[in-house]
């Protein structure tokens, strides 16, 4: 069943087309990779899907609903989460607070309920705490639970970002270079967690330059070059593709 569908998306700045007639579909429960050289338009694609960059033409549908004109936070609330290339932790909050802050639709975030509905908010907090603890232990972050997020290592920050996304209870997550700047040991762990989440039914789309790790992880991938999708298929098929080799490695391999 189709979950995310992108049809003929074009986006750009002036005469430069960052995305040129891009179409792709992701089915529910799928684990899909996107590869491509720097500047191929991968991150722009994520930004268009999530509403950070506006498209010039084309359509985005998510879970049967058109996303073309929804503001960023509305897209998130419909179950589509993303991470960024560079970790964007809430540096002065602890790991636990980072996760708690991510939870959607909190009663305690509104001023009037805050004044009059103390007990319900306390109950809500307790529920969120339990959920945050569960995710923290799933991601192996229990040891740093009460550390300021700014003190974490690059890899831990990536795990933290994943944890925050999970607090949203999303249907689909878009991960932008989750393995970049992460040490090999943690890459294995991160990769394992992503696979586990996918097994539990979460749809995942990953942009990644670490082709070895990515092809182990995803059954299907797209390759992009200069704003266009050049091919699609299994990892072997895509990496064997003449155009991909040409674009990605200058034909060396």
């Amino acid at each position: 069943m189709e979950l995310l569908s992108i049809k003929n998306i074009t986006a750009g700045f002036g005469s430069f087309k960052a995305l040129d007639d891009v179409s792709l579909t992701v089915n529910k429960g799928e684990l899909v990779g996107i590869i491509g050289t720097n500047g191929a338009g991968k991150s722009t694609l994520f930004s268009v899907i999530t509403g950070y960059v506006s498209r010039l033409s084309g359509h985005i549908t998510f879970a049967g609903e058109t996303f073309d004109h929804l503001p960023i936070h509305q897209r998130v609330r419909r179950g589509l989460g993303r991470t960024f290339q560079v970790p964007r932790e809430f540096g002065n909050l602890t790991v636990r607070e980072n996760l708690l802050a991510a939870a959607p639709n909190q009663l305690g975030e509104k001023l009037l309920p805050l004044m009059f509905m103390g007990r319900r908010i306390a109950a809500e907090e307790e529920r969120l705490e339990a959920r945050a603890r569960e995710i923290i232990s799933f991601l192996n972050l229990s040891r740093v639970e009460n550390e300021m997020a700014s003190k974490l290592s690059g890899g831990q920050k990536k795990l933290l970002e994943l944890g925050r996304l999970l607090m949203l209870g999303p249907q689909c997550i878009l991960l932008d270079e989750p393995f970049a700047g992460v040490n090999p040991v943690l890459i294995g762990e991160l990769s394992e967690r992503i696979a586990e989440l996918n097994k539990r039914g979460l749809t995942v789309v990953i942009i990644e330059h670490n082709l070895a790790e990515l092809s182990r992880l995803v059954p299907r991938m797209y390759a992009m070059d200069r704003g266009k999708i050049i091919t699609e298929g299994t990892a072997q098929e895509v990496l064997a593709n003449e155009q991909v080799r040409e674009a990605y490695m200058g034909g060396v391999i």
Partner: protein
Amino acid sequence: MEGYVITIGITILIYMLMAGGLALQYGFTGLSNFGLVGFVAIGAYTSSILAIKGVPIPLSLIAATGLATLCAYPIGIIALRLGGNYLAIVTLGFSEAVRMTLQTEEWLTRGMHGLTKIPRLFSGWVEPSRIDLCILLLLLAINIIAFLAFRKLVKSPFGRAIEAIRDNETAARALGKDTAQFKTRSLMLGAACAGLAGGLQAHYLTFISPEQYVPLVTFYVWIALVLGGADTMKGVIVGTCILVGFLEGSRFIGDFVGGISEVKLASVRIWMIGMALICVVLYRPQGLFGRSIVRN
């Protein structure tokens, strides 16, 4: 002497209320509001005009707080779509626009003549010699209530959300937070404090004029926050005490150090504040009692 101490106490507490509002906006939400004095002026004039017309002071103070809060709403809508530095300029412009309006709309504000005979707090309730002390106690009570409310607020899920927005707004939006709404609310709450402080000050001074509401007042509150630390209640309290204590206390430097003329003394005072500010920023950028927070 006792009277002078009370006067300083009142000034400190009025500034502290403003600083509390700005701390919520800047220290906890990351909003650079350089137009704080605009909201103070709105509060002061609203409360004064109403009270002169015969509205009981408590009611006119509530109206003043309310109007200052409402005025923050459109600013939020306009400015919060823009980045941080733009907000600083927009709010500074707003406060100057308020001051110009107060100067020119003479039918309402009596322009440069200012408003006189503003009803004094507690007058007719307690004997005249005790009024100042009562105002001091009232301000103390209001500050305590305000700071308890702040503490509850910043420890709540709302506080967590605005701190998240301060730390990384893009990430907060990526998690589905309607950041503009949070920022508007924070701006409005801070404006409420400023408006109330303005109203209280007017009913203490009994005379106000537009030139009291120059940007320097905003900068003083900023200095207090930079000195003390903008993201802890302790920082706000200590920063305000140091600033006002110094501004007032340094009048007497001339008494201890001979050979300085009055004119020179005025410059020396500002120079000392400047030096103190530079030292704090260099050696303790988070302020004396601020948390050592990381700014992006």
